[in-house]
C-alpha cells in the first residue's frame, strides 16, 4: 500500500528540552488517525511539522514519497495539499463568506465555483446561509464550525485537527465527529489530536500515542 507521510529520525526541541523524537512513522492515505498523549507530549508540535508550518530540528520528512525541502517555493504546493485546524481557530475580520473563500481565492478559483464550494462547505458543518454573518460575532461553536468549513472548502488531501472538539458544545461536537469520521471515505486523511480517552474507540481510527515526545504502545500498521 502507498504511503502518505514517512517520518525518519525527526527531532524537535525548544532550547534544551526535546519535545519530539520520532525514529520511524508511516501514515497511509485515506485513514483516520487519532493522536493521543498528555499535555506537552508533542502532539501539537507533530501536527505543525505535518502541516509544513515549522521544520524539524533534524531528520527527514517524506510526503507522497518525496523528501520535504523546507524552503518557501517548495513548501507552497505542499501546504496547499494539507490544512491544519487550530484548537481555537483564528477567524479573519470580515464575513463568514470571506473567511471560507480565503483559501479558494488564493488558489485563483473562479467566482461561481467559489460560491458553490463555500455553500457546500457551510452545509457540511450545518451553517447553511451564514455567508453574510460577521465572523467575529459568532458563538464559539459556530466559529469552530466556520473554521472547519474554511478547511473543508479546499478539499485537502490531509486535514490536521488540533483538539477539534475541545471548545465546543455537545451538539457541535456530535456534528463535527460525524463529519470527521466520514472524511477518510471521501479521500481525505484525517489526523486529529485528542485527550478524550473515549475518542479512539468511538471514532474507530488508528491510534498514535505519544509519551514525552516519543511513540509509545502499538504502532499503526505501516502497510
Amino acid at each position, binding site marked *: 500500500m502507498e504511503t502518505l507521510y514517512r517520518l525518519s529520525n525527526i527531532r524537535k526541541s525548544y532550547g534544551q528540552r526535546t519535545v519530539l523524537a520520532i525514529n520511524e512513522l508511516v501514515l497511509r492515505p485515506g485513514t483516520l488517525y487519532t493522536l493521543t498523549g498528555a499535555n506537552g507530549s508533542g502532539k501539537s508540535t507533530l501536527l505543525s511539522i505535518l502541516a509544513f508550518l515549522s521544520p524539524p530540528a533534524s531528520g527527514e520528512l517524506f510526503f507522497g514519497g518525496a523528501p520535504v525541502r523546507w524552503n*518557501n517555493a517548495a513548501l507552497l504546493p505542499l501546504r496547499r495539499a494539507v490544512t491544519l485546524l487550530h484548537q481555537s481557530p*483564528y477567524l479573519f475580520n470580515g464575513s463568514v463568506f470571506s473567511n471560507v473563500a480565503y*483559501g479558494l481565492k488564493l488558489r485563483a478559483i473562479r467566482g461561481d465555483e467559489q460560491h458553490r464550494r463555500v455553500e457546500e462547505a457551510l452545509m457540511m458543518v450545518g451553517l447553511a446561509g451564514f455567508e453574510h454573518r460577521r465572523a467575529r460575532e459568532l458563538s464559539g461553536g459556530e466559529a469552530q464550525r466556520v473554521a472547519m468549513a474554511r478547511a473543508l472548502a479546499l478539499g485537502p488531501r490531509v486535514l490536521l485537527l488540533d483538539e477539534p472538539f475541545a471548545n465546543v458544545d455537545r451538539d457541535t461536537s456530535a456534528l463535527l465527529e460525524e463529519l470527521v469520521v466520514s472524511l477518510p471515505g471521501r479521500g481525505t486523511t484525517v489526523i486529529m489530536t485528542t485527550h478524550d480517552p473515549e475518542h479512539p474507540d468511538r471514532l474507530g481510527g488508528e491510534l498514535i500515542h505519544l509519551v514525552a515526545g516519543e511513540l509509545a504502545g502499538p504502532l499503526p500498521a505501516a502497510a
Partner: protein
Amino acid sequence: MDFFTESFHTALDLIAARDPDVVSAVTVSIVVSLWSTLFAALAGIPAGVALGVSEFPGKRWAVTLLNTLMALPTVVVGLFVYSIISRQGPLGGMGLLFTPSAMVIGQTVLAVPIMANFTLSAIKGADPRIIPTALTLGAGPFASVRRLVIELRFGIMAAVIAGFGRVIAEVGVAMMLGGNIRGYTRTMTTAIAMETGKGEFALGLALGLILMTVALIVNLFLNFLQQR
C-alpha cells in the same frame, strides 16, 4: 479684552472673512502634510512590517535605531535635508529648497520612523495565529503578510494618524526647508511662529485654534477610514 477671548474672536473673524493668507496657510499645511503622510506611509509601513515579521542578526539594533530616529528634533531633520537639497548639496541642481516639495521631503523623513515604529508595535502585538492560519490555508509568504496587514488595519491606520499628527504640527522642517514664503510655503505653524515673533500673540493663538480645528477635521476623516 482678555487674551483668550481676543484670540477666539480673532479666529472667528479670520474664518468668517476667509482671510486669503489664512486660507492659503491652511491649504499649504494640509496639502504638504497629506503628501508627506502618503509618502511616509508608502515607505514606513512596509519597513515596519518587514522589521516586524523577519528575524535577522542585528534586528535589535535596527529597532533601537528606529526608536532613536523617532526622537530626532525637527530642526535636525530640516538641517540634514537642507544640506542635501541646497544648491551646494548633492541634489542642489533640482532647485528644491524653499519649495513645498522640499517640505514634503523633510516631513516624509520625519514621519517614516514614526509610522514604521507604530506598524512594528502593531505587528508585535498581533495575534500569533494569523500568519500560520494564512499559510495553512495556502497563502505564500507574501500573501500571508498581506493578510496580517489587513487584519492589523486599525493599528496601521493609527500609525498613519500619528505620522500625520507629527507633520502637521511641526514647525522646524517647514520653516527651514519651506522658508515661510507667503502664499507658497507658509503653513499654519510657520505663520504662528512668525506672528509670535512679531508680537501678535492673539493672532498667533487664533491661528493655533484654526490649526486645531483643521487637524480635528482631518483626524475625524482618518478615523472614518479606520472604521472601514
